[in-house]
C-alpha cells in the first residue's frame, strides 16, 4: 500500500514552482470522521473506524503526511442527525479540523454537504450512496471519494443480464428507507430500459430493522419469481437470507444482493452457490487483481487479527478517503514548492485527483464525483473458507456506468437502450485463477 500511495503522489501533475505563500506546518493534521458507532449501521461503522485507525497508524509510523502526523476524531452517526450536524460544526469551529470525512448515511450527507460548503471545510463523502447531491447542486469543498448508487446498481443489473439473460419475473425486498427506495428506483428504471419485457411481481419494503421476514418469504415462495433483488444490508439482510435459506427459497429463485459482500462471512454456508453478490465498488478481501500483493494481503490479515473478521466494503471506502487525503496534501505541497499548503490549495489539488486505496485507483471528476470500479460476482463454496466466496467476477469500468457529468441519474438511465449491455468495458476473473 505504501508503495502505491507514493507512486500516485509522484504521478500528481502539479507545478513544482508554485509561488503561493506557505502556511506554517501544523503539529498534526486533524481529520473528523463521522461513522456509525451505535445503532444497526454500526455493522459498517465499526469496521471502518478500526480500518481508519490502522491505516492512520501506518501513515504516522512513516512520518505522517508531508511530515505531519494525522489525528482522527470520530463522531457517532448513530446518535442522530442533529448530533452529527452539531458535532460537525464543533469539530470545524472548535477543534479546527482540516478535513472532514462525512458520512455513511445519505441523510447525513445531505445535511452536512451544504454545511461543509458554508464553513469552507474540505469534506469527503466517504461512504454515502445517494446520487442526488452532485446532480442537484454544485460544490467546491465537497467531494465523493467513491461511487454512488447508480453505477452500483447498474453494474449489478448488467451482471444479472449477462448471467441470467432469460429471466422473466423479478421481485424486490428492500429495507423501507431512503436507500432501499432509491436503489430500487435506479435498478427498476435501468431494468425497464435494458430489458423491458421483465415483469415485477412484488415490491416489498419491510420495515428497516424488521426482526422477521417469514411473511415476505412465504409470499415470495408462493410467487416463485425468477430473480429476487435485495439491496438490504447488515442484520436485515442476514435475517432475510437465513430465513429464505431455511425455507428453500434460495433453491427456487436467483438472489441478487448488491451489498452482500459485507455479509458473506457472517452468513457462512447458509448462502448457497449461484447467487449474485455486489460490493459497492471493487471491494473484496480476495480482490482478484491485488490478492497476491503482499501489502494488500498483509492488511487483510492484520485487520482480521484485530477484529476477527475480514474487511468489508466500508473499510475499502475508508482506505479510499484516506488515500485521497494523502494524495491531495502531497499534491498541494508539491504545488506549493514543498511548503505546507493553505487549505484552499488542498481543495484546488482535489481537481482531477487520482488516488488508490485498497481497490483500483479512483479519479475525481469535474463534478467532484469519484469514478470507482464495480466488482460483481457469483457465490461458490470452496474448501478454504467456511462461507461463500465469489467466482465469475466481473470488474466494470466506472467511466461507462457512472451517470455523465451534469445529467440526472434517472433520466440518463431512461435514455439507455438494450445494446448498452454489450458496450460496457469489463474484466473477468474467476476464484480459482
Amino acid at each position: 500500500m505504501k508503495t502505491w500511495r507514493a507512486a500516485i503522489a509522484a504521478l500528481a501533475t502539479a507545478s513544482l514552482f508554485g509561488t503561493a505563500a506557505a502556511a506554517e506546518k501544523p503539529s498534526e493534521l486533524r481529520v473528523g470522521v463521522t461513522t456509525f458507532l451505535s445503532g444497526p449501521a454500526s455493522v459498517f461503522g465499526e469496521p471502518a473506524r478500526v480500518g481508519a485507525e490502522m491505516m492512520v497508524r501506518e501513515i504516522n509510523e512513516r512520518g505522517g503526511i508531508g511530515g505531519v502526523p494525522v489525528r482522527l476524531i470520530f463522531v457517532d452517526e448513530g446518535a442522530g442527525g442533529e448530533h452529527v450536524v452539531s458535532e460537525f460544526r464543533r469539530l470545524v469551529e472548535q477543534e479546527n479540523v482540516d478535513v472532514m470525512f462525512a458520512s455513511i448515511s445519505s441523510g447525513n450527507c445531505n445535511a452536512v454537504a451544504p454545511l461543509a460548503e458554508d464553513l469552507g471545510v474540505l469534506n469527503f463523502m466517504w461512504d454515502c450512496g445517494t446520487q442526488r447531491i452532485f446532480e442537484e447542486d454544485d460544490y467546491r469543498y465537497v467531494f465523493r471519494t467513491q461511487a454512488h448508487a447508480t453505477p452500483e446498481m447498474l453494474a449489478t443489473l448488467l451482471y444479472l443480464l449477462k448471467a441470467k439473460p432469460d429471466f422473466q419475473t423479478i421481485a424486490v425486498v428492500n429495507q423501507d428507507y431512503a436507500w432501499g427506495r432509491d436503489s430500487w428506483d435506479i435498478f427498476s428504471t435501468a431494468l425497464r430500459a435494458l430489458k423491458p419485457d421483465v415483469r415485477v411481481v412484488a415490491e416489498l419494503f419491510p420495515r428497516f430493522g424488521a426482526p422477521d421476514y417469514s411473511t415476505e418469504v412465504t409470499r415470495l415462495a408462493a410467487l416463485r419469481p425468477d430473480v429476487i433483488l435485495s439491496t438490504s444490508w447488515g442484520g436485515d439482510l442476514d435475517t432475510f437470507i437465513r430465513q429464505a435459506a431455511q425455507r428453500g427459497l434460495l433453491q427456487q429463485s436467483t438472489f441478487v444482493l448488491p451489498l452482500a459482500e459485507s455479509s458473506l462471512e457472517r452468513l457462512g454456508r447458509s448462502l448457497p452457490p449461484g447467487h449474485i453478490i455486489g460490493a459497492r465498488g471493487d471491494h473484496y478481501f480476495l480482490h482478484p487483481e491485488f490478492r497476491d500483493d503482499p501489502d494488500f494481503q498483509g492488511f487483510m490479515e492484520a485487520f482480521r487479527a484485530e477484529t476477527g473478521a475480514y474487511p468489508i466494503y466500508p473499510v475499502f471506502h475508508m482506505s479510499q478517503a484516506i488515500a485521497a487525503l494523502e494524495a491531495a496534501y502531497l499534491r498541494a505541497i508539491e504545488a506549493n514548492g514543498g511548503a505546507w499548503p493553505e487549505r484552499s490549495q488542498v481543495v484546488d489539488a482535489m481537481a482531477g485527483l487520482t488516488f488508490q486505496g485498497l481497490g483500483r485507483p479512483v479519479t475525481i471528476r469535474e463534478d467532484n464525483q469519484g469514478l470507482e470500479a464495480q466488482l460483481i460476482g457469483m457465490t461458490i463454496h470452496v474448501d478454504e473458507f467456511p462461507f461463500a466466496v465469489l467466482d465469475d467476477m466481473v470488474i466494470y469500468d466506472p467511466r461507462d456506468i457512472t451517470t455523465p457529468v451534469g445529467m440526472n441519474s434517472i433520466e440518463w438511465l431512461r435514455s439507455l437502450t438494450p445494446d448498452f449491455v454489450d458496450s460496457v468495458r469489463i474484466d473477468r476473473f474467476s476464484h480459482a485463477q
Partner: protein
Amino acid sequence: MTPQLALLATLDGIAYAALVFMVAVGLTMIFGVMRILNVAHGSFYAIGAYSAASIVLGLTAAGMNPWLVFPGLLLAAVGVGAVLGTLIERLLLTRIYTKEPVLQLLVTFAVFMILEDVQRLVWGVRPYFAAEPVYLLGNVQVVGIFYTAYQLILLPTVALLVLVGLRLFLRRTLSGRLIVAVTEDREMATALGINAGRVFLLTFVLGSTLAALGGALASPTTSLVPGIGADMIVLSFAVVAIAGLGQVEGAAIAALMIGLGRSFAVYVMPELEVVVPYLVMVIVLLIRPEGLFGVVERRRI
C-alpha cells in the same frame, strides 16, 4: 386473495404473534401488579436474545450434543430474568414505588438507556445469529410452501404453553393468587397482610423472564443488532394497550390481531405493514379507552 394465500398469511401471522405475545404478556403482568409501565422491558427482550445466541453459539462451537440448544434457550431466559430482574427490582424499583407515575416511568426509561449501552459493550455491534435450533427442527410443507417447524410449530406451541401455564399459575397456585389479588385491589391485598414487596419481586422476575424468553426464542430467526429492544417495547406497548392493561388472555388476542394484521398487510397492502399495530392501537383506544378487555375504574364520590 385466494383461500390458500389467506391460509399462508394466517400461519405467518401466528408465528409472529407468538413472539410478540410472550414479551407483551410479561409487560402487562408487571403493569397489573406494580402499576409501572416498564420501558426497560424491551431491554430484557434484547439481552435475553443476545444471551441465548451466545449460549447457542458456544454450545455449537464446543461440539456438544446439538439438542442441548433448546435447554440453552430456556436457561438464557431464566438466567436473564432472574439475575437482571432481581437486581433491577431490588436495587432500583423498590426505591420508587411511592413516587409519581411519571417518575417511575422515567426510571425505567433511564434503565433502558443504560442497558442499551450495556448490550453494546458486552456484545458489540456485529449482528448475532444463532440459527442452530431452526436447522435442527427442519421444515414442514404446507400447500407447497416450506415453513420452518421452529416457526410454524415450536413458537406457537411455546406461546400456548405460556398462556395456559400462566392461567394455571395465576388461578391454582398460592403465589399466582397473591399476584391476582394485588392486581385487583392493592390496598385490600396489603391490608390483608400480603407481603406486597415479595409479590412485586416475583412478578417482576416472572415478567422479565417472559420478555427474555421472547428474545431467546426470537434469536434463532432474527439477527440481533443494537436497537431491537426499542422496537420491541413499542410493539408490546401497542399489544398491552389494545388488550387492556393487566389482561393476560387479552394480550394473546391483541398479539394475534397485530400478527395477522401485519401478515395480511404484506399480501394486501404492503404499504400499511408498519403502521398496522399503531393504527389498531389508535382505533381501539379511541373506541374503548380501557382496551378491548380492560375494565373501567370509576371514582366514588
